[in-house]
């Protein structure tokens, strides 16, 4: 008798060193079921899937706690290959296809159907002739089952992105004995109609008895496709729901949840609503992985505007686009003056400073001293901290040292001294050096992008408090981009939520979890409510 569940993961716990990323998580999937796995970035979805596929990263870091049951049998999945032979397939987010091969060849890769020939009889099986006819026949039926009419001999190179996704799915379906398929954000790159088609294909597959784990952040798709939903939050199981007993708002609320107290508590105040400091219109930014597809918003003078959203949705693209670090389009007005796009230097000269999310890549000169890092922008953009001799210039060591010491004291940068190399500092202190460099410019407008990423709680608090202090005491207008909603809510006056490169809504920090959850999955909370009322 077949077990009730095709896959059962019981009490899975996984630690990376001291850091617990999964604690006591269970997942149960019935045959022929579409089971959605929901969660914010870092909720533990990928780690859970890594455990399921026996990825080397899991075994290399000390394995995991709990047990995995396949068809009711306790199983130890040793490697991704092992997972494949046990009938677990994965449709990857990044396509794993060979562009120069035809669709058939891609589908049958490494599982080719072969016929013995003269040579192979002598030299072994690896030299057998490919049975292209049989292969294309199999490929055809796999393609048909995903609803693709495209010729199976077409080369993958040049196919539309959506098609590649379907080829990938067809390949998984073609594997004999596949019992469970994992779709990792399959609709992220698809158009709306393709997504609809995909969902119907998924349902089709499920009706043949193959279970599907559907990882996504689009709540409406979950509602449309899934039979059951497991929601993870902060590495813990937040809830398991059947589709009948839940709603979009319920899911959104479960996904966000209150994560304890805010890191810092700030006295609430009426949000400034006077002069516009920056007006962004139709900003398009071509930042790989964080494309912005036309956003418009105003930032008021003296406010802290938070920008939130899930990873890869384009929130990071906004500051990078305003600073012209990536190819951009649109119009940006700063205090009424139009900002010239295309050169980061112009943005800096006009009085905007930015603390980059990519500290090590963009934010710091790791091989240079703290003091050189701090004064770099002021020196290059404003010509400060230099002694001039006609056309020749020389660093003004005394002035540089003075400002560095002041910053180290003010921001509490823990270091041996201003000449220590930035690369040897801890993440939090590196972040403070980045902030110090922005401050050395005396900016009127400050962008901070993911200021608390990868730094410890103490440093986090200090960074956030510093931002508040700058805002309150110096009246600096600040735009903070962060993946941590709680952080945004604790210090922002307003929070803009970005999804799929577009601004969904600007919310009050005290708006409900459900509103944030909906906005993050691209649904404007106001509209949804209206729809509900209608």
């Amino acid at each position, binding site marked *: 008798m077949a077990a009730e569940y095709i896959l059962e993961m019981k009490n899975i716990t996984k630690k990376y060193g001291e850091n617990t990323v999964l604690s006591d998580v269970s997942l149960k999937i019935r045959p022929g079921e579409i089971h959605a796995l929901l969660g914010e970035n870092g909720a533990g979805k990928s780690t859970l899937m890594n455990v399921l596929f026996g990825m080397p990263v899991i075994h290399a870091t000390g394995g995991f706690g709990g047990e995995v049951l396949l068809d009711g049998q306790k199983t130890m999945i040793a490697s991704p290959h092992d997972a494949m032979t046990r009938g677990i397939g994965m449709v990857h987010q990044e396509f794993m296809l060979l562009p120069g091969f035809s669709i058939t060849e891609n589908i049958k890769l490494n599982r080719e159907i072969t016929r013995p020939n003269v040579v192979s009889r002598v030299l072994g099986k690896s030299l057998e002739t490919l049975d292209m006819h049989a292969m294309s026949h199999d490929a055809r039926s796999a393609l048909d089952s995903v609803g693709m009419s495209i010729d199976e001999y077409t080369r993958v190179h040049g196919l539309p992105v959506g098609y590649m996704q379907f080829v990938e799915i067809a390949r998984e379906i073609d594997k004999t004995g596949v019992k469970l398929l994992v779709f990792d954000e399959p609709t992220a790159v698809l158009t709306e109609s393709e997504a609809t088609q995909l969902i119907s294909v998924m349902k089709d597959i499920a009706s043949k008895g193959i279970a599907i784990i559907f990882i996504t952040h689009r709540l409406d798709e979950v509602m449309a496709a899934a039979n059951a939903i497991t929601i993870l939050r902060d590495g813990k199981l937040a809830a398991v729901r059947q589709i009948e007993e839940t709603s979009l708002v319920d899911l959104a609320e479960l996904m966000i949840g209150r994560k304890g107290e805010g890191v810092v508590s700030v006295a609430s105040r009426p949000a400034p609503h006077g002069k516009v400091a920056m007006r962004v219109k139709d900003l398009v930014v071509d930042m790989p992985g964080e494309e912005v597809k036309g956003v418009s918003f105003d930032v008021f003078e003296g406010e802290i505007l938070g920008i939130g959203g899930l990873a890869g949705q384009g929130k990071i693209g906004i500051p990078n686009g305003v*600073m012209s*670090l990536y190819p951009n389009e649109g119009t940006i007005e700063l205090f009424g003056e139009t900002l010239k796009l295309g*050169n*980061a*230097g*112009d*943005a*800096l*000269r006009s009085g905007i400073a*930015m603390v*980059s999310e*990519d500290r090590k*890549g*963009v*934010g*710091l*000169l*790791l*091989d*240079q001293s703290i003091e*050189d890092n701090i004064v*770099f*922008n002021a*020196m*290059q*953009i404003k*010509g400060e901290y*230099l002694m001039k001799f006609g056309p*020749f*210039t*020389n*660093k003004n060591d005394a002035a540089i040292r003075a400002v560095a010491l002041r910053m180290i004291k003010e921001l509490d940068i823990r270091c041996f001294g201003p000449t220590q*190399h930035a*690369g*040897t500092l801890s993440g939090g202190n590196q972040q403070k050096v980045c902030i110090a460099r922005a401050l050395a410019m005396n900016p009127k407008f400050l962008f901070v992008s993911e200021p608390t990423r990868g730094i410890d709680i103490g440093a986090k608090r200090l960074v956030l408090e510093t931002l508040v202090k700058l805002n309150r005491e110096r009246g600096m207008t600040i735009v903070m981009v962060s993946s941590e909603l709680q952080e945004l809510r604790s210090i922002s006056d307003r929070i803009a939520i970005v999804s799929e490169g577009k601004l969904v809504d600007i919310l009050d920090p005290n708006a409900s979890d459900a509103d944030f959850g909906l906005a993050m999955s691209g649904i404007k909370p106001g509209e949804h409510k209206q729809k509900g009322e209608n």
Partner: protein
Amino acid sequence: MTKKKSRKIIAVVLAILAAAAIVLGAMNLPQRTGDKGNAIIDALRIRTLLNATGDGVVESYVAIAKKEATAKVKAEGGGMSAIREAVKKAEEETRAQYSNSTTDYSKLDTTALAAAVTDYAALLESYDAIALKAENAYIEENMAAAQAAAKAEREKKIAAGEEVGEETEVSVDMSGFVATAEMTAAKEKADAQYAAVGEALKGIYPVLDDSALATLKDTIEKIVYTRGDDFTVKYDRYMAAGSGEALDDKMSGFMVRYADDLIYAGVGLIVAALVFLFSELLIAKLGIPRVIIGVFFILLCFMCLLYDLSLPTLLSNTLVRMGMNSIMVLAMVPGIQCGISLNLGLPIGLVCGLIGGLMTIELNIPGALGFMFAIIVGGALAAGAGWLYAQLLNRLKGEEMGVTTYVGFSIVSLMCIAWLVLPFRSLKLRWPLGTGLRNTIGLDSSNFAHILDDFWAFKIGSFEVPTGLLLFMLACCGLVWLFSRSKTGVAMQAVGNNPRFAEATGIDVDKMRIIGTVLSTVLGAVGILVYSQSYGFMQLYTAPRQMGFIAASAILIGGASTSRCKISHVLVGTFLFQGVLTLGMPVANVLVPGSTISETLRILISNGIILYALTKSGGGSRG
């Protein structure tokens, strides 16, 4: 904890050994000119003398025996063959008899001989002093003429198109030298004393006759005194002659002879103890590569001392070679700073510099003016070439190592053709037949040979300081240092350090890379000119091919990485690289004597260092 403790114990043991060695050496060193040293030398000298004359004595006996045998056979009326046989037999017998019977030296009374020999040595020495003075006077008198002759010869060769080397030191032909009256008088006195020595020897070996003494004269004279004698030379000479047994206390003789080496060993042990004690600190401060090569360099210094190689001369050479190579190494700095990594395309700059140098000779601009002209022309060409090169590098970002290497090789090969077709006319530059430039072009005093080396140069003993060269080196380093502190320099370093960071600050990354590449190429042009003026040659064709690697290795050894460097890395690296190379070869030649291994070794050592340096291209820890 225990590791630290054991390290301390070992260091203390080493220090104690060192102290012992130094004390022993210091005690024995003054003895060389003291009574003990004299006694040792006297004893050895007499024994050597007796041994030498002893051989003469045997020959005398043999002669007598031969004569007797001949007479005997003749008297018996034997034929020629019988005589020959008898003579042979007599010789063998006599030789066997006397050679085997070891003389019992202790029974010989050598007091008279010793006195005579001491006086004889003094007389010979005073004669030699007079002779030396006279010879020097003669050389001084004839030097100018000899130099003029050599120059004329050289020019004749150039005109005839023969290969001419660097100007060698002119030597005066001594064949016209006539002994002065003073010399003759001193010589006579010495000869008279030799008669006294001969008498004393006859007292010991009665068989010696005057003719035997006359044949022995040269030998004895050489034993007693040779020009340039001092304690160690004499000691070695007598020991080599196998007279060691004459010493009652062999140990003390050894101690006196090797007193200086004992002191060296002691100092070496102290250095070893210090390095050992502070190894962690040193490695942390300098990085392992510099500690290893530094220790190797110090080791070579001590080996030079132990093998009695002239350390001051070698160190002076090191200094010269450091100076002549330093600008080329300095050329790596802007390259690394602007992010093109090691500029292995340095040969571009080098050939530009060479062209500048060739123009100077072609136009016959002498001296300092010519050198300046060469630098300006070479620098201008290098700036142009560097700009083009930078365009290439900007289009091939991320592949700099490969591209620079390839460009470096290509330009050398391309210039091999160019050297053949460039329209230079000067006979100093061209082959006399056909077209093309010579392989090596000797610079001489009419061009800019040694123009920097000899500027304000001075000597301390045999340590020569090439002041001008060092000043020029420091000036160039200073300029590059100042540039690296300017606004542009700071921006350029940011580009090299983190191009995305620089871009985020609105810095034109490509422009900064162009500036760095051009600077590097121009420094390369200046560098080869400095190198050539010191070396005395300009080398064309394939010679510049390796120089980029040598410069790159030097700066890596100095502690730079492919993305980070300081001026101090240039100075330290060049000194260590050239120091090891300069000291390594003579030491290796002593260790493996009488071979033609030096060229092989040169290649081995220099390429070995390059290889080692490139393995360290990740650089030391951030300091």
